């Protein structure tokens, strides 16, 4: 079970993004991105490299100015938000070698001090530092120098720093890039705990479908600066993978037909009505993974120039399906032995 069963207690909107656009010089990086996140939701922005994930998250974090569109993060525009807003937000950065000389507990203790004035009756800020260190599994390293931590330990410290102020909303940009499978698994557990325990809204970016499926309640697929799909993993499989393969045997021969768009049921009904000898009927839908891989492949081979301009939010399904059709033969019937 990757998605959490309990619905968030309030229907409040934590993130509201409408028609977000970003242009660097003449290059359009985001061409109209719109989505919402309710409080307590775990959202994954999934997409190949260069899809605009990092740009989107950096605009929401208030680290980057957008070209156009409306953005509300916890009810405020990140471009003009104040420090009180910043205190309700957690940004998990990928540390590299900053604060290398600092001791783990001293660094967290220092950063925690900034949040004390923002404590409210509802949310006690910040976290108790020792409790937080235990929660992220760094108790044995509380007195270690940051530069002596392993990669996985350092990333757990990054998470601890990101949440030390008990944020209502946490941003994670490519949190497990460069992780070995074990570290990745530990990290996933940590994110789950955070989401379940604190009812924190989480937005993370990843280019790994598996990770998005494991962590997120909802996945938003970004490609070429626009959203091509938005939903749970199951919904995504239905929405994004519109191709299916129909195979059957008739008159001792094996037939294959590719349905590239829409529901294959109609084709099957027609087939059965026309041909009474059909046996061994199989209908196979392309897996979400197949579809996503072909999307990634297309993004890598075609580069930037074809992306972006080809689609607007309305006909997203056809855009995704049209781009990934090369895996299957077109409407021709093939004969195999």
């Amino acid at each position, binding site marked *: 079970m990757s998605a959490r069963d309990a619905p968030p207690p309030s229907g409040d909107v934590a993130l509201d993004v409408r028609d977000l656009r970003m242009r660097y010089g003449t290059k359009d990086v985001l061409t109209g991105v719109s989505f919402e996140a309710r409080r307590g939701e775990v959202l994954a922005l999934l997409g190949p490299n260069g899809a605009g994930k990092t740009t989107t998250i*950096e605009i929401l974090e208030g680290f980057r100015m957008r070209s156009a569109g409306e953005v509300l993060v916890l009810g405020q525009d990140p471009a003009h938000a104040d*420090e009180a807003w*910043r*205190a309700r937000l957690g940004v998990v950065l*990928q540390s590299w070698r*900053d604060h290398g000389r600092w001791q783990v507990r001293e660094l967290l203790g*220092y*950063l925690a001090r*900034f949040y004390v004035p923002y404590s409210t009756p509802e949310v006690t800020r910040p976290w108790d530092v020792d409790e937080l260190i235990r929660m992220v599994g760094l108790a044995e390293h509380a007195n270690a120098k940051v530069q002596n931590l392993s990669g996985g330990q350092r990333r757990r410290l990054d998470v601890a720093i990101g949440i030390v102020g008990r944020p209502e909303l946490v941003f994670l940009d490519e949190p497990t890039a460069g992780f070995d499978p074990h570290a990745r698994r530990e990290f996933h557990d940590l994110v789950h705990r955070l989401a379940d325990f604190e009812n924190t809204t989480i937005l993370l970016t990843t280019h790994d479908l598996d990770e998005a499926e494991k962590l997120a309640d909802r996945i938003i697929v970004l490609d070429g600066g626009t959203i091509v799909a938005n939903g749970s993993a199951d919904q995504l499989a239905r929405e994004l993978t519109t191709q299916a393969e129909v195979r059957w045997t008739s008159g001792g021969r094996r037939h294959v037909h590719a349905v590239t768009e829409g529901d294959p049921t109609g084709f099957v009904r027609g087939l059965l009505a026309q041909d009474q000898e059909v046996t061994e009927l199989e209908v196979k839908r392309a897996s979400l993974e197949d579809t996503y891989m072909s999307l990634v492949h297309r993004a890598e081979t075609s580069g930037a120039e074809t992306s972006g301009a080809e689609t607007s939010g309305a006909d997203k399904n056809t855009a995704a399906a049209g781009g990934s059709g090369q895996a299957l033969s077109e409407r021709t019937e093939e004969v195999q032995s």
Partner: protein
Amino acid sequence: MTTTTTTRTDARWAAVRAGLSRGWLETKYSIREPGDLVWTLAFPVIYLVVLLFMRGSTVPGMDFALGAMVLPSLVGMSIGFGGLTGPASTIAVDREDGTLLRAKATPNGMIGYLVGKILMFALTTAVSLVALVIPAFAVAGDLRLDARTFVLLVLIFLVGMLATVPISVALGSLLKRASQTGLLFLGSMLLIVPSGIFYPITALPEWVQWVGQAFPYYWLGLGARSAMLPESMAAAEIGESWRTAEMFAVLGVWAVLGVVLAPIVLRRMARRESGSTVAAARERYMSQGY
């Protein structure tokens, strides 16, 4: 609205206090680090070497030990050099390794960062000054040592920090890469030439004297000499006077300039910082090694 303004003020004070703890912690880490300690103790060591070479020599035409004459100039120089190059190079490094981005992601984090930096440089420079001055008084008996010396030195130290640290912060923010800090060291060294620290400024061509007097080094050196040398040594200075008022005025102008410029330049630089700029720097380090 009163509650929100109180919170804002409270939060800023909390950030200042956090910054003070940051400055203290960073000083502690810096003193424990052998690489940093070398810098802190560089001036005392340089002075020892100078003393060794100047043994027995006196200021030309006067019965005054040359070694004692050089000490106050070195005090001024170490304030100026520490204040000008230190903050600039750490800001350039902190920017690339993500330290500044962390400050930006924390409410009022930039206030804490700046307060911490200023305190750290003040403390490490003070440590290095103490290490320079205390043994020197024991060696060079001709130096003046009274309440005026002490008060003037503390004042010059404070004004010197104000005149150099903000300017340095601004310069560091202008650098594109941490590897360019070498330029700052070079520039700083060049400014020392016409500053009258190693060579009496009155012996230099007049236009060089004007260049020297435009920058803080000369005035820091002059101020330190006025604090530590006997009154009669003023005769060797421009206008045969310590020019204390002018000294504070010029350093004050540099302080105002820095205090006005630094936040503007720093804010402009910090606005551009994001996860991807740090990632780009990291990538460059991985592939090119600098």
